[in-house]
């Protein structure tokens, strides 16, 4: 259904086409249910609540009082955003029945915009993973090829948009968890500047890297959605003081004179599949034809980014996940005879293998005797990466790279190889380490599977980022391609 594929189509159908929000939401719920066996994008639907909210949206529209462009439109959210009175699991056994008494700020802002959350999407447990295979509920499958992963950790949200269940879905990105699944699933995925969207209510993985972002089919839709959730929040001490940016008005379609930097370290033939580099090069050529200038730049510390990321992220995660102990909420091991027994068994039963691996690594990295060599060192390398970007942005307006070195891999292909899995993040982690906004957009296919073009902009410059993305989409049709599904 077209109205489930784009915000513009939904708005037209609702405002002029006689479609009600209740009908639209019902269509979304039905499609989710129909595709559930094939895709398993959702962890939980909120059918009754969604239909009730849809009726309220219909009443508002009839009164001529829509709250925003998203009013009455079905959306999906990753199951690591807490919702008051509803279960949030983070795809983990240790939270399997946790009901939050409060709403994440992003959730309350969405509610204020009139958007209707139809369900919570699947993810890698606690957002740790790049394939959505680390979910206690089982993996989500890529709509383009169900034997393959949709990427991760926000695989469920990416698949939900790619499969036309909702036009917009929200996820989180710590090392690429929005951009990489966007790339694998052939949709647009945006990670804003660190601090743009409040983390209040986002279950923490790595506090200095986590950021909430959005999936959509187009840059325009992504811009509309981001405007609703960005902006200062006093409940998050790392929240930037700036109010929500005006993004839609920045989408002029004009890139003449804009300088696009191409970092040589990201275009090394040995580092990526040839089909991927080809598609990305064609994409930047398209932008050049539209009037942009291309310039080679260098980000010399790129080879160290993944290592730095994994040291910092796991260190912070090991501390953030210490609260899951069976005392105040979540899973508790039965029949514990002592406190120690309670902790050990609850946590060992409750966490999956990847989460345990990262907790152990992170604990090691912070532990006495290793802190300087690992954690502190990684934070220093992080400073060098930030400087790399500052220098590069002195010579260009945006940076273009492949989002991933490859296309979607087969389910189970990386099961025993954590390092190989981590290396897949090589192009995405730097943006998190430097706090930069980034977007992945579909720019073609390789062996039938979507390839993503990544754009990165300086801090707080989502406007330029999305302007370039939108300009590209005005001239190409890759973002209109749809996987074949029932």
């Amino acid at each position, binding site marked *: 259904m077209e109205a489930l594929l784009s915000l513009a189509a939904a708005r037209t159908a609702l405002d002029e086409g006689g479609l009600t929000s209740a009908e639209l939401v019902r269509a979304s719920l039905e499609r989710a249910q129909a595709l559930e066996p094939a895709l398993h994008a959702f962890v939980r639907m909120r059918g009754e609540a969604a239909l009730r909210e849809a009726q309220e949206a219909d009443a508002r529209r009839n009164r001529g009082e829509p709250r925003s462009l998203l009013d009455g439109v079905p959306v999906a959210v990753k199951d690591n955003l807490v919702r008051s009175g509803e279960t949030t699991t983070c795809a983990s056994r240790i939270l399997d029945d*946790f*009901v939050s*008494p409060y709403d994440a700020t992003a959730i309350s802002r969405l509610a204020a915009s009139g958007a209707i959350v139809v369900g919570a999407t699947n993810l890698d447990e606690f957002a740790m993973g790049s394939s959505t295979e680390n979910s206690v509920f089982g993996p989500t499958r890529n709509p383009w090829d169900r034997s393959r992963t949709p990427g991760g950790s926000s695989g469920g949200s990416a698949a939900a948009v790619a499969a036309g269940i909702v036009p917009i879905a929200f996820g989180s990105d710590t090392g690429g968890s929005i951009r990489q699944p966007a790339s694998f699933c052939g949709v647009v995925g945006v990670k804003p*500047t660190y*601090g743009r969207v409040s983390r209040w209510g986002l279950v923490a993985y790595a506090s*200095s890297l986590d950021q909430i972002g959005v999936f959509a089919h187009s840059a325009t839709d992504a811009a509309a959605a981001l405007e609703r959730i960005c902006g200062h929040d*006093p409940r998050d001490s*790392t929240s*930037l*003081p700036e109010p929500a940016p005006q993004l839609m008005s920045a989408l002029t379609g004009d890139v003449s004179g804009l300088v696009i930097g191409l970092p040589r370290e990201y275009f090394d033939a040995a580092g990526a599949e040839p089909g991927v580099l080809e598609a990305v090069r064609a994409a930047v050529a398209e932008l050049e034809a539209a009037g942009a200038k291309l310039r080679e730049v260098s980000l010399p*510390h790129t*080879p*160290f980014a993944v*290592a730095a990321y*994994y*040291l910092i992220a796991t260190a912070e995660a*090991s501390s953030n996940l*210490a609260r899951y*102990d*069976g*005392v*105040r*909420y*979540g*899973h*508790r091991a039965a029949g514990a005879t*002592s*406190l*120690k027994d*309670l*902790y*050990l*068994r609850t*946590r*060992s039963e409750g*966490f999956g293998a990847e989460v*345990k*691996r990262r*907790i*152990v*690594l992170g*604990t*090691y990295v912070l*532990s006495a005797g290793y802190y300087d060599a*690992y954690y*502190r*060192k*990684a*934070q*220093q*390398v*992080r*400073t*060098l990466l930030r400087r790399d970007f500052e220098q590069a942005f002195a010579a260009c307006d945006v940076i273009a790279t492949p989002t991933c070195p490859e296309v979607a891999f087969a389910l189970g292909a990386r099961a025993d190889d*954590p*390092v190989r899995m*981590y290396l897949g993040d090589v192009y995405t982690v730097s943006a998190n*380490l430097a*706090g930069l906004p980034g977007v992945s957009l579909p720019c073609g296919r390789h062996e039938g599977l979507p390839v993503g073009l990544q754009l990165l902009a300086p*801090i707080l410059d989502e406007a330029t980022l999305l302007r370039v993305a939108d300009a590209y989409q005005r001239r190409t049709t890759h973002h209109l391609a749809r996987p074949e599904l029932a």
Partner: protein
Amino acid sequence: MSGIARDEVRRIVALARLSMDDAELDRMQRDLAAILDYVETLDAVDTSGVEPTSHVIPLATPQRDDVPEPPMDPDLAVANAPEVSGSAFVVPKVISGEEEG
């Protein structure tokens, strides 16, 4: 420094309040060694005189006014608890000296 001693793995696993059988410890030891090996690449970077990043974007320190909000309904506060007694959380008896570490 390649590899990590089995005892050290055990110590860290215990510090993180996880318990693992031998097979899991084997795997963990192997995975950690592989990851730490990979991470050793950072040794090649000259970071002398470089400040560690504490926050990517410098912010003025947010400080909030000392105005209390009404507390949570105590029933809601313990609503998710696996075990309660009245409005208190319950855990197995703590042996003194178990604290910390």
